[in-house]
């Protein structure tokens, strides 16, 4: 109320100089922010499941929704140029499709499919337990 009054009296620009910028969040922004924080936590666990991350790389592996899994990596080469690899796994009822950097989808098979199976099962167990406090027996 005080802030609103000052906004009216001093004008928004001057009031901001006096009080500084106070971030305010709409319900939607708040929802997105909380969701992002949880995904970050999950993604760190996902990265750990995939094994040690090479020095200089940032890795995330997380469940985006019930049918979509994301594996994202960024790094810089020796010349300092930034690189990114974005892999999206789409879960169909009878198969897993993979897109690398937005390219054409291809069916995941063989060892890669088994590795994906391992990773998502492990992710479920560790995230359910560590982030959401669910008891999961392995």
């Amino acid at each position, binding site marked *: 109320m005080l802030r609103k009054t000052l906004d009216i009296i001093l004008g928004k620009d001057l009031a901001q100089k006096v009080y500084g910028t106070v971030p305010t969040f709409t319900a939607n922004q708040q929802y997105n922010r*909380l969701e992002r924080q949880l995904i970050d936590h999950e993604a760190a666990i996902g990265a750990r499941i995939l094994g040690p991350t090479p020095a200089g790389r940032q890795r995330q592996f997380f469940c985006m929704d019930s049918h*979509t899994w994301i594996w994202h990596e960024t790094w810089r080469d020796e010349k300092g140029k930034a690189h990114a690899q974005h892999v999206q796994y789409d879960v169909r009822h009878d198969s897993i499709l993979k897109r690398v950097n937005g390219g054409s989808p291809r069916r995941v098979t063989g060892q890669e499919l*088994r590795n*994906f199976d391992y990773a998502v099962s492990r992710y479920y167990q560790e*995230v359910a337990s560590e982030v959401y406090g669910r008891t999961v027996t392995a």
Partner: protein
Amino acid sequence: MHEAFSGSPETRAQNSAEILELTPVNYESTPLDGVKQRTMRGAMPLANVGQEAQMTSIGEADIDRAIAERAMAAGVIADLRAYKVRELRDAA
């Protein structure tokens, strides 16, 4: 649609847990990037999907379907997340 994907978040989480526990993996695997090997314990049916003999007897299509079903079950994490976000937001 499998029952794991209907009902409350609690029900779906429980159902997903059952799917994942009934068909856990039990093979040495190198996760997606092939960096590190780990073993999961507590194997049962489809547990040995990594073994060539079972690959042959079950059939690759069946294995693909079973793995896809497990992945969907694991995807219940997204429901748990949404539930948690609403809980945190309402508590704020």
